[in-house]
């Protein structure tokens, strides 16, 4: 076959277009368009029927009834919650996943079965998993409550989900729980790429187990830890169902994060304010994505 004629750069891109166009159309229609729609909505005024009434400037963000300044909403507490939510969940998830991955990396019978059990919270819908916790923690019919009383940990059943603060901490637990499988798998993949001969050499040179871990294995795990941390930050930040199901107190309360607050605003204050807060969240996501692209450089090899 004759070698294809050298085409111009522009033509090469044009030739790729039919193969990529459907993807581009979907991303434009379902990601870019709603983003623009939100940006527009966030700067508009709406009456109580949701009818648009002209420009609102930045009122939806920081006006007298703005997303970040609404009088009856404990905004500083919710911002603090959001920071605590993301940092505590991601940090504890990483630490536990390091331990779990280390354990799963040992050769033993039944390791494959254990890997399958660990994916349970990953494969199952977060809504269903959270609902089990919600049921177990009910003060009257909840089995976890009964267990806590029977073992003497609690004197009497406690309505964990009826109080925003305790509900928040239960949600932290569940968020860690459902984040563990992905994180463990990512770190395990990193562990399995640590070459045995380096460890062997360090052993011959007299390094003990602890030294081998902290001087060799841990530094080599950094890339997979970075990936796991950043993907978890964005997932945990955007998590809706866990807090929504476990925090049974209605309305604005001290159990919200900015993500669940969006949906509270959407129900109570309409599209303008909800869009404004969504945009703030969107900006945070973009920052995390930018850090991900810069640190992990996923396009380096493809």
């Amino acid at each position, binding site marked *: 076959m004759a070698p294809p004629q050298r085409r111009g*750069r522009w033509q*090469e891109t044009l030739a*790729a277009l*039919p193969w*990529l166009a*459907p*993807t581009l159309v*979907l991303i434009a229609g379902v*990601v870019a*368009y*709603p983003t623009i*729609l939100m940006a527009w909505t966030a700067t508009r005024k709406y009456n109580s029927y949701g009818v648009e009434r002209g420009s609102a400037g930045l009122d939806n963000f920081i006006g007298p009834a703005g997303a970040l300044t609404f009088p009856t909403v404990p905004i500083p507490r919710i911002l603090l919650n959001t920071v605590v939510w993301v940092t505590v969940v991601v940090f504890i998830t990483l630490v536990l996943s390091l331990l*779990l991955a280390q*354990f799963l990396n*040992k050769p033993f019978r039944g390791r494959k079965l*254990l890997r399958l*059990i660990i994916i349970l*919270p*990953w*494969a*199952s*819908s*977060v*809504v*269903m998993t959270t*609902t*089990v*916790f919600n*049921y*177990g923690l009910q003060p009257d*019919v909840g*089995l976890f409550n*009964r267990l806590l*009383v029977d073992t003497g940990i609690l004197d009497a*059943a406690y309505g964990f989900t009826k109080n925003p603060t305790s509900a928040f901490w239960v949600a932290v637990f569940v968020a860690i729980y459902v984040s563990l499988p992905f994180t463990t*798998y*990512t770190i395990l*993949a*990193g562990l399995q*790429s640590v070459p045995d001969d380096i460890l062997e050499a360090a052993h011959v040179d007299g390094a003990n187990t602890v030294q*081998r871990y902290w001087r060799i294995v841990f530094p080599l795990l950094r*890339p997979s830890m970075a990936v796991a941390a950043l*993907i978890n930050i*964005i*997932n945990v930040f955007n998590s*809706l*169902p866990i807090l929504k199901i476990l925090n049974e107190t209605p309305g604005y309360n001290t159990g919200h994060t900015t993500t669940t607050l*969006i949906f509270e605003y*959407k129900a109570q204050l309409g*599209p303008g304010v909800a*869009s404004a807060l*969504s945009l703030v*969240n*969107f900006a945070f*996501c973009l920052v*995390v*994505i930018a850090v991900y692209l810069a640190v992990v450089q*996923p*396009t380096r090899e*493809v």
Partner: protein
Amino acid sequence: MGATASGRRWSGINKAPNPIGIAIGCIVVAAFFAFPYALMLISSLKSREDIARIPPDYLPEQPRWDNYLTVWASNVAPGGALLATTVISVGATLLVLLIATPAAYYIARFRFPGRLSFLFLVLITQMLQPTVLAVGLYQQFRDWRGQLVWVALILINGTFNLSFAIWIMQAFFASIPKEVDEAALIDGAGRLQTMFRISLPLVWPGIVTAIVFVFVNTWNEYAAAFVLVQDPALQPLTVAMPRFLGLYIRDWQYLFTTAMVAVVPVIVLFSFIERRLIGGLTAGAVK
């Protein structure tokens, strides 16, 4: 793993792992990751009186397997929700296959200006989620009434899962030597024909991974369905669950039979692709 292989691997560095420690570790880990699903199963087998008892009993008086039959005729009738979830998941999976396959094939085979920008765009989509765009998606699709709302959810879930499919499939396509394709092209096949007849059969593990991942993710999706589907008759499972918990009747047992039906099939599917997930989710950054 064979005993000899593991023995050799650990002989130089470590003592063989302590079997009792391993056994205890296994039990603790397995119990930790299985207990909510065990509770789900146990609760799905209780009678209405049993599950409403205060304080509750740990085990059902008598396992009520017929809950799995009577739930469909209960006042919530979750059959419709199961249908909605199935239609949306199958639709999104087909959409992704149709659209991601050519894109993955092309970026694996060709270098062209704009390729890197395309990859960046795909990555950004992978990391964004319907939750942060839910308010915009609601405004965009709120007039899609009736079954059209399922189409909206197919489009949304398809788009947000495209990137995983593109990443994982392009890695598989790239692993096929170019010569295989070229031989087909010389024999007179077109590009599209080459992709379908020659490359696709060779990358089936990637395709299966993509199919299962998109299906399971859509099956479990919550935020977009929550804002878009108000009509109870059209709600998928994740959104319909609270309907079991009415003001007077709280049918936890039916809620959990439905949850079991929603959870068990996807766990089985997921277990088939478990080994290949990380490569696609981390865009190859961790293999």
